[in-house]
């Protein structure tokens, strides 16, 4: 997993958290989420993000990678 030095920037971290919170809150109610073979609610994901526990940090890092890969076009590359 990439080492996101940018996340030391608190302002950026807060921005990414807001993005994640908005994304999770906007998830269709038709969907259920499981991670590692266990169901997880939207509220649990949001709690993890706000607490900054291991799952929360992972979601934030993934959001940052997502934004980075989209802006660099990496997301569409094969292999």
């Amino acid at each position: 997993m990439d080492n996101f030095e940018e996340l030391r920037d608190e302002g950026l971290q807060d921005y990414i958290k807001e993005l994640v919170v908005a994304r999770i809150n906007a998830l269709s109610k038709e969907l259920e989420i499981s991670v590692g073979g266990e169901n997880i609610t939207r509220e649990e994901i949001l709690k993890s993000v706000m607490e900054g526990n291991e799952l929360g940090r992972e979601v934030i890092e993934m959001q940052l990678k997502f934004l980075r890969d989209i802006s660099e076009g990496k997301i569409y590359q094969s292999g």
Partner: protein
Amino acid sequence: MGSVLLLTRPNHDLPTTYLYHWSELVIKEASNKGIKVLDLEGKKANKSQFSSYISKNKPELLFLNGHGAKDCVGGYDNEILLDSSNCEALLKGKILYVRSCEAGAVLGPFSIGKGAAAFIGYSRSYWLIRSISKSTRPLNDSVAKLFLEPSNQVPISLIKGRNVKESYDKSQKEMRRNFSYMISSKASIEERDAAFFLFANLSCQVMYGQGTAKL
């Protein structure tokens, strides 16, 4: 061909039940190719049977479904099937595909150090997004399909004769293709909402060991 596939597919909750049903497609492919399948389904996915089947039948390919952590993989009711204590005894020369969270972080490289030929898994959380309305018919769940079809490509490609690197690449390619569809205007709202989580799986799928290994 003479190869043997061992798979574990517990079904003690809804997420594992999804993996259980979607793994049937891998079993079907293996059977079509004349590969002997050791199917540790449901409660048979326990440590005792897991160890016994491997010792007696010496499968070349292990496909494990279930809950995982950085250093272990679980079976039915999350009983630990594989961890650092039994890697060396069970994995020598084998190809592993572990469809669970995090096992790629520690167990993966550790298993290579203990003699496994190759390992494909996930170094962080493995996400699965499901449609509530399809929960009683997992194979009809079009959202889950976008996650599990590419994931199935690892064992299916190996069964079809591709090597580990090719199978990993095939799975990655299919995840990218599904992701591109999911962020397009052709996707449903649910599919678009799920795209981020498929991206997460794509990003953390890892491969260790001999890329040239094959069945």
